[in-house]
């Protein structure tokens, strides 16, 4: 029982995940780009100020707020939605890895991967501080 030949859960699952990730990144980049063009078109002549940290308004800090902003085509909301998609890509990957280990009936790794997934979801959703 040394896992020889099984260092990757399942070659096909992995290739699928890789392709999915690239599609996710492309989609996210397209959303960021579109939002960016709209943002530059309307805010391009303003003076940027990132010298002093103020923090983002609360609607750009959580998933519900970002989705609402993007749905009403707010420019910064759209960009933030694209960034959210990007942040989600590795999380989706870990989710699929849980499935791959379930298919292999590898309980230890199902547990390990679930803990990692839990931490990721906590940091994105649960850590409202």
């Amino acid at each position, binding site marked *: 029982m040394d896992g020889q030949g*099984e*260092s990757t859960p399942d070659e096909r699952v992995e290739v699928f995940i890789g392709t999915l990730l690239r599609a996710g990144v492309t989609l996210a980049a397209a959303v960021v780009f579109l939002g960016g063009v709209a943002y530059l078109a309307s805010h391009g002549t303003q003076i940027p100020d990132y010298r002093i940290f103020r923090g*983002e*308004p609360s609607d750009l800090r959580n998933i519900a707020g970002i989705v609402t902003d993007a749905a009403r085509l707010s420019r910064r909301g759209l960009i933030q939605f694209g960034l959210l998609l990007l942040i989600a890509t590795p999380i989706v990957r870990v989710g699929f890895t849980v499935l791959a280990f379930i298919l292999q009936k590898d309980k230890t790794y199902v547990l390990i991967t679930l803990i990692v997934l839990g931490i990721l979801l906590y940091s994105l959703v649960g850590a409202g501080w």
Partner: protein
Amino acid sequence: MNVLEFSAVVFAGSLAAGFLGALTGFGGGVVIVPLLTLGLGVDIRYAIGASLVSVIATSSGAAAAYVKEGFSNIRIGMFLELATTIGTLLGAALAGVISGGAIAVIFGLFLVYSAWLSGRPRRERAAGEKADPMAAALKLDGHYPGPAGWVDYHVRAVPTGFSLMLVAGTLSGLLGIGSGAVKVLAMDLAMGLPFKVSTTTSNFMIGVTAAASAGLYLNRGYIDPGLAMPVVLGVLLGASAGARRLAGAKSRTLRLVFASVILVLGAQMIYKGVTGQL
């Protein structure tokens, strides 16, 4: 400088950072934060937020290519992700309580260390002959496609590798980088993994680690869409162009030049952090 000009400058800088980062193996993240803070006077927290998202983009974007090569070891990656994601929570919590200047100093020290590390030849350790009982229990040993069939490898020093990954995660959460340098070090030197396996597994891990940090930073309002937009698009384009050119050997001269740049940036970050200018 208005928003349009500012975005153009940030985009161009990120494009160069992504390109050189991919070509030299440093990753783009290490120079984005100095570029934004030292070069454009951006608050370090905004800079870290933007850098993190770009790190995720390059890691996920490259995953498809790496998977096809069959080198990455998902079990090692997942097991070590336990350490890096926990470290990330630690690092992000730390980032909330210490000053921007202190973060800049730690960032500078990390840059100096990365530059120093890259100057040393990367020596492949002889693969462990007998199985480590802990590695065997966790099924970490694996194999990868070599020129003459499959090459088997054993994993050593699991607790040391795990502890180093805690450090890598903490740095990632604190500094907004992928900390690939620490990850590769832990897997190469401590755990005795073959280069190909450690490099590709590290790429997989960087995205997951950065996602854990990014979630926290988003909740805290560190991720500004106007700033992150040109950074992400620039790094992504630059990195994919760099990865395509990578096919041949990495240029040693280019690596040396980039390492010197990183060294200078590191020294500046430390100086400005200590004197309270960042």
